[in-house]
């Protein structure tokens, strides 16, 4: 993981979060399920099954909200961010929200278009801690834990497909901006 910098001077993340607070998410994760037939997905679903992890719909705690650039927040935010980190184009940009007591357990982001994407070597992935530091807000990427990060901190991932997890055992919702 590589720290890129802090963008809180060019994007008002509090305003972005406030605007999401009143919206219905574009969808609720996870978007894939066991047996969907996407290459690599069984690595994740098998592990969740072994661990006994269940989605909120199944009576468990696995659940996160997805807010998409151009739908839930202005595309100009994504463009400004892309310019700041030095990428000309991006495929995907979203803000995830993990509500209190909820998990995005250990997984990698298996994409519908995984076969094609897995051939590409030019993809760079970043995340940004857009909320203020709060107890219980955790992001883990591989063996690194991101906790109490200042608002606006940006990191570049080793790979689009790095294993990661998000958790919230605090008292307020946790937001994370993602782009690749």
């Amino acid at each position, binding site marked *: 993981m590589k720290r890129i910098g802090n963008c809180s001077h060019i994007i008002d993340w509090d305003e972005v979060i406030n605007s999401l607070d009143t919206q219905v998410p574009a969808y609720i994760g996870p978007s894939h399920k066991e047996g969907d037939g996407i290459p690599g997905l069984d690595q994740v679903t098998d592990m969740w099954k072994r*661990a006994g992890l269940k989605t909120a719909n199944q009576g468990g*705690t696995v659940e996160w909200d997805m807010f998409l650039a151009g739908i839930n927040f202005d595309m100009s935010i994504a463009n400004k961010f892309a310019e700041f980190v030095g990428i000309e184009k991006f495929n995907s940009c979203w803000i995830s929200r993990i509500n209190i007591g909820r998990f995005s357990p*250990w997984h990698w982001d298996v994409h519908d278009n995984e076969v094609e994407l897995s051939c590409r070597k030019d993809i760079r992935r970043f995340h940004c801690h857009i909320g203020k530091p709060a107890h219980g807000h*955790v992001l883990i990427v591989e063996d690194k834990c991101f906790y109490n990060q200042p608002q606006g901190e940006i990191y570049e991932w080793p790979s689009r497909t790095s294993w990661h997890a998000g958790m919230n*055992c605090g*008292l307020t919702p946790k937001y994370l901006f993602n782009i690749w």
Partner: protein
Amino acid sequence: MLYLGNTGDMIDWDEVIKTCQSRNDGDRNTVNTVVDRSEADAVGDQKLLGYYRQVIGTWEQAGYNLSEIYWYDYYPGTHFPQDVCNIFSKIVEAKPLRVFVSEVFPGVVVPYHWDVEDKEEQWLQQYGNLVRYVCCIDKPRFASVMLFDKECLYYNKQGDIFQWDSYRDYHSAANGGEHPQYYFHFLGYK
């Protein structure tokens, strides 16, 4: 949090975990059972009950589904050998007052709280200040964390010991990984 060293070659933590896993009589803690088991409930100690209510009230106010919160505790001499506690006590040079191994299953959080202790006032009067330690007793496990206000324990070496800033430190735990999470906790005095 102060890192004190590693106990990996002094205590067979795998064996301790295995022993706890083999038990089916660990203390199951829920919002209800922690208060039911407390002496505060038995003697109607309003101050102590107030501490419990404050912690649970914070969770309720934040919107937690209280029925989803649970964890297990295992005690030396009851669930795993007393020797483990005795050896640890020598390592940290402190006398034990309350010692246990906590177990948090995948997909479970134990939210922001401090460990309300029934005998806190008595012990403070008897022993002066109390000290608290945590030991990471399992092998490094992905997506399993214990959190404090300023720090996070993640992917630590098996056997790493940390001393808390204060025995009353707020903390929480979350397990988004594949394996149950285990920590050894030691509250004592010097």
